């Protein structure tokens, strides 16, 4: 039942990113098949010999059955996983053909991932918002109140200016010195070659880099009622096009662009995931968890 809250159109009616994130994650988790082996918060670390006064519930009775010695299973309360989300806050992200624009969708996605990481995984999480330069930076941390800081930064992230990956990239390198997971949320309106070329260095530090490609349905299938003048949201340049063009040639070009970007990112060892703003958020969360599991 809670899964219906994963629908972006429903989320749009909820005010407050913290509530949205909580709704999404709990809806998502409630829909998972709960497995006894699927742990979120604890990772096995080592065995330790039992000493009087230890909690009996932690004794590994299987080991005792084999060795007739009492050992405690110890878990690591914290991980080394570091989640950093690079959020594109350029003007093109404010495009939306229905209730939820790409910036809103990206916010919901980021908020949900932060919530999942901090509350569910106890990972350190951080945020960098950028357009043609670094606009905001929240250092990854597991400190108390980190989630609120991240959500506040997301709230303040307004779409403006234009995207330029190359310019803020050198700053990313400085901020991302610790190994972790880097998620880049953007509509990636640049040439795939340039994108991969710019982002690829992030991997060199041992980071897992995933591109969440957020697109509006009309980015892929624009609807025109007649010959129209189109305005680029980032550059304000105008172009007159016909429905015939958007119906045939443009769709082919977009499909080719997406295929090229996917191939190039995979070839470069980057993760790539295409998210349409009219689709639920759970796919993105599942992708993150899968990746997270792979890193255990």
């Amino acid at each position, binding site marked *: 039942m809670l899964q219906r809250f994963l629908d972006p159109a429903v989320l749009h009616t909820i005010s407050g990113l913290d509530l949205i994130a909580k709704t999404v994650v709990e809806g998502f988790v409630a829909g998972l098949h709960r497995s006894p082996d699927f742990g979120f918060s604890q990772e096995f670390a080592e065995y330790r010999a039992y000493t009087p006064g230890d909690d009996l519930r932690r004794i590994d009775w299987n080991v005792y059955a084999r060795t007739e010695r009492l050992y405690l299973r110890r878990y690591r309360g914290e991980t080394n996983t570091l989640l950093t989300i690079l959020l594109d806050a350029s003007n*093109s*992200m404010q*495009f939306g053909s229905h209730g939820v624009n*790409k910036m809103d969708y990206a916010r919901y996605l980021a908020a949900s991932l932060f919530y999942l990481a901090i509350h569910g995984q106890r990972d350190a999480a951080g945020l960098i918002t950028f357009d043609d330069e670094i606009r905001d930076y929240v250092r990854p941390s597991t400190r108390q109140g980190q989630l609120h800081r991240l959500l506040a930064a997301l709230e303040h992230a307004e779409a403006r200016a234009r995207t330029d990956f190359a310019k803020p990239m050198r700053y990313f390198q400085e901020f991302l010195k610790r190994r972790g997971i880097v998620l880049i949320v953007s*509509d990636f*309106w*640049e040439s795939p070659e340039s994108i991969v070329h710019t982002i690829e260095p992030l991997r060199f530090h041992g980071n897992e880099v995933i591109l969440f490609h957020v697109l*509006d349905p*009309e*980015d892929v299938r*624009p*609807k*025109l*009622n*007649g*010959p*129209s*003048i*189109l*305005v*680029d*949201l*980032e*550059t304000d*340049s*105008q*172009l*007159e*096009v*016909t*429905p*015939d*063009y*958007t*119906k045939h*040639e*443009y769709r082919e*070009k*977009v499909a080719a*662009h997406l295929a090229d970007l996917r191939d190039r990112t995979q070839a470069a060892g980057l993760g790539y995931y295409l998210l349409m703003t009219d689709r639920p958020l759970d796919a993105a969360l599942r992708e993150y968890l899968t990746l997270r599991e792979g890193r255990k």
Partner: protein
Amino acid sequence: MGLFAPWFLAALAGLALPFYLHLLKRQTTTPKPVSSLMLFESRTQASTRHSRLRYFLLLSLRLLVLLLLILAFANPFINRNTAALASNRLVLLVIDNSFSMRAGTRLDDAKNAAIGVLSGKGAARAQVAAFGSQLRLATEPMEDQSTLRSAVQAIQPGDGHGNFGELGRAVRAMADSVHTPIELHLFSDMQRGNLAATFSDMALPDNVKLVTHAVVTRSEPNWTVESVDAPGQLWGKDAKPVHVQAVIAGYGTPAAQRTVSLVVSGKTTATKSVEVPANGRATVDFPALTVPYGFSRCEITIDSADAFPADDLRRFAVERSDPQKALLIHSYNDNRSPLYIGAALSAAAQSAFVLESINVNEAADRQPSNYAFIVLSDLNALPSLLENSLTGYVRSGGSLLIAAGTSAGARSQIPIFGARIKETRDYSRIPDRYMAVGSSDASYAAVAKADGWNGVKFFYALDVDAGNARVIVRLGDQTPLLLEKRIGEGRVVLLTSGLDNLTNDFPLHPAFVPFIEQTARYLAGSERQGGARPVDAYLELRTAREQAQGVEITDPEGKRPLTLGEAASAQSFQLTEAGYYQLRLANGRQNEIGVNPDPKESNLDVIPDDVLALWQGNGGKSTQEASTPGPATTGKTPQSLWWYIMLLGVAFAVAESILASRYLGTQREES
């Protein structure tokens, strides 16, 4: 070329509207934001050129549709030579066969003149029509001379009264459907009596040219029996002989002595001489008309002394039958109302009804259906058996007269009639001590023939709730006095006062006799038997409750003019011939009617030349045209083009719709 309504051209300013819309549409194209133009390519030049072309096509069509619509309203015309239209003209030959054309050789002269016109009509189409009281077309428009001549010869003298107003109306209707010029040749005796009440009724449209052919040029003297006043019915073997009064009129005649005869069933029963003054009238009175049982065909005739013998008689039919029975039910101690009602019926209705008076206690064993009508006079108590019996009688078509006096005032409701008694009005206590009639419905015969009950004093009346009953008479204080209500197939008349001289002085008043007579005739349904009617009058064959019954009519020639279907359903019948009609009406009654031509037809005075010239639209010129249709004049005739323009406009509108829908269809991207 010109315009009938050029002021509509002002609407040409409206042509700016499509221009405005098309330009506005181009200017108000709202730029559509997109995330990035990275993958878009400009198709500006090609697409714009393409759309402009289509826009212009659409714009042109819209402008054309508007232009044609405005032009159609402006009603353009072209002047065509009348000569060019001559081959299209229709020569309409109208031969007057009204009753007056029976005089002398008028009808034959008219036919000969018509055949003369046919001979000279050339290749033009012609149509023959007879004109009595109505225009009756004898042929379709055609060129075949022999058929047209036969149609002219086949026209028989009629008995109707001609009216040129009716001719004008019929020709106007014809001119609306026939778009070619019409040359109307009227062959008539041009009676002055045929003129319409107003000249505009006779006016002819522009495309109709009237040519009159008068078969007589001056009026002729004529004597006629103008009217006969005789009863339609006599009742009983002891009925008193009745008077017959006839008026003999002379038109354009010198003073003369005429012999007038009363003919009953072909036998002359009385003859009188009368001195008819010059151009005047004289009245003849036959004091004793005696007829046997059944219907008798009677006539008043005068000796023929003019060229028009057909109008020297006037027919009427008289029926002698047994009187009908009527029942009066009164209270035990009421002996006044039987006296007054019985006296009134015997005095007025020529013993048409035999009144049987009984008190309410004796009424139980009577069969109501044996009586033509029943009167309930001021009954306090009505036995339920009798009330049910009377209700059934009324529902099945019987008639009832209820008089509600002081005894009935003790009840809360009028029995059978069903009206609630609101209160009783005792006018003897007001200062005037009585109340007079305030308003009355003059269309009701029982009231109209009783002079509206003027001077009758009412001392007591019941104020009843009229409901859906028809109120015929009200007292001065608006209390309903005489009401009628239909119950089932029958009718009930209610007098809210008594029929004695205690609650009013009506029985002592002269108006009482005609009231009782007319009410009795009305309730018995015998008010329209026998008598005489004019030609072209309509006869009501059935009432609303007699729908399923068949009627039978035999005309003066012994034929049955109604088909089986008409006999089963026709509501009325027009008496088109003079003579005696025999009828069996839907209610089963037999009737016979004497039908006479309109007396106006006997006045053979002719229309003055100046009036005829005015009618022809060429006042001052000679009214009598040559007997052949004149050669086509070389004038111009405007011919309207609006019909063709409207057709063209519709075609362009369809094309515009198709183009616009196709254009929109290709521009809208399928999702």
